[in-house]
């Protein structure tokens, strides 16, 4: 038991949260706590102050059309919302276990910026827009410009992620795959988020995004380029080795991740080609 003695600033509204963020730029942000509490217990994070956002109800929830997701929306909320794309609901059901899905938040996953963050490739595949707010105002940053390096994001020290905005994607095919040690609880070895737009059997637009294979979640742009302009071609997956820089670590090896990244892309493309 290593209860942190750091002072906790508890915000109940967004306005309070932004004021506290501006006043305490070095404070650690707390949402559902499912990552932070582990880091504190392990001693890998020792906050000097904490801003607790959990009670900001206005940042939780999903609009009826499923297009805007509050940063404090939990994975359980996401998994149960009918207007959320099926691939994203499936992703929500693979984050940790049900107890973690009940507490962990969309915003926490995005801001925590782990290269293995389960949802991150899907935000890239969806061209999601992140709304960042501070006492200075609000700005919108595309997912593709948010993760700058290992656990480094575009968030300024006085900013909070408040909402995620999704575009309507019509008949686009969305895919999600997570490869881990087991289905429940596992931290991913490779995560795939993909989106294909087809016209008359030809791919006109493609997003192929991967997690756990580089310092940040990334788009596999060589694979995307190989897909566009042709019928769905499984061989496009071979280009992935030019897009990713996996490492050997506690969960897997670089060689394994290279092979599996290619194979999960092929498996997804194969399923889409068979529809």
């Amino acid at each position, binding site marked *: *038991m290593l*209860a942190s003695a750091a002072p*906790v600033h508890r915000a109940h509204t967004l306005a309070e949260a932004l004021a506290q963020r501006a006043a305490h730029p070095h404070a650690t942000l707390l949402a559902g706590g*499912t990552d932070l*509490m582990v880091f504190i*217990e392990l001693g890998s994070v020792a906050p000097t102050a904490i801003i607790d956002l959990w009670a900001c109800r206005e940042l939780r929830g999903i609009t009826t059309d499923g297009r805007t997701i509050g940063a404090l929306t939990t994975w*359980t909320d996401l998994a149960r919302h009918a207007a959320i794309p099926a691939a994203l609901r499936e992703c929500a059901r693979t984050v940790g*276990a*049900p*107890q973690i899905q009940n507490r962990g938040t969309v915003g926490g996953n995005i801001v925590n910026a782990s290269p293995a963050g389960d949802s991150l490739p899907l935000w890239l595949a969806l061209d999601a827009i992140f709304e960042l707010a501070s006492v200075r105002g609000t700005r919108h940053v595309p997912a593709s410009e948010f993760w700058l390096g290992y656990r480094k994001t575009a968030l300024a020290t006085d900013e909070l992620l408040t909402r995620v905005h999704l575009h309507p994607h019509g008949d686009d095919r969305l895919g999600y795959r997570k490869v881990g040690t087991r289905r429940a609880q596992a931290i991913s070895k490779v995560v795939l988020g993909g989106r294909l737009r087809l016209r008359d059997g030809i791919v006109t637009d493609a997003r192929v995004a991967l997690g756990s294979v580089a310092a940040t979640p990334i788009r596999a742009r060589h694979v995307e380029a190989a897909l566009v302009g042709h019928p769905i071609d499984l061989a496009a997956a071979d280009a992935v080795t030019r897009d990713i820089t996996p490492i050997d670590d506690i969960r897997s090896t670089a060689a394994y991740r290279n092979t599996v990244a290619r194979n999960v892309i092929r498996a997804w493309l194969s399923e889409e080609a068979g529809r």
Partner: protein
Amino acid sequence: MIRFTVNDRDVAVSAPPMSRLLDVLREELRLTGSKEGCGEGECGACTVLIDGVAVTSCLVPVIQAEGCRLTTVEGLASDGRLHPVQEAFIRCGGAQCGICTPGFLVMAKELLDRSPHPTREEAREALSGNLCRCTGYQKIIDAVTEALVAPNGSADAR
């Protein structure tokens, strides 16, 4: 002081705000039914309900329980009668060494409140964050899927 209710009892605790809810329950409130297994949200032994929602109490700072309604395994029985899922665990042999059992019972209660007659697959998914090293899980799934079915096979009007 941080105030909340546990098993319908109002409490006020003086622990530092980032204390783990699990430690406050066990050490300050002496509700030792919730167990610490892994301490990092992987095993489910410390599962409690906050406003009816299952969480691993090792990952919840006590400040976030403020104003909430908590249920621990001690709160499942009422008026001296065990909860039907506790009866079912006894009937089906769902517990062996017992350290994971409180977490399974609380998680099962959340599931049964939401879905009184779960399929085996639903029960497996709901309990996927609870680890048991003794039973092999089959008897736990037996217990949860038949908890609200009376011994004569009819649905128990709880």
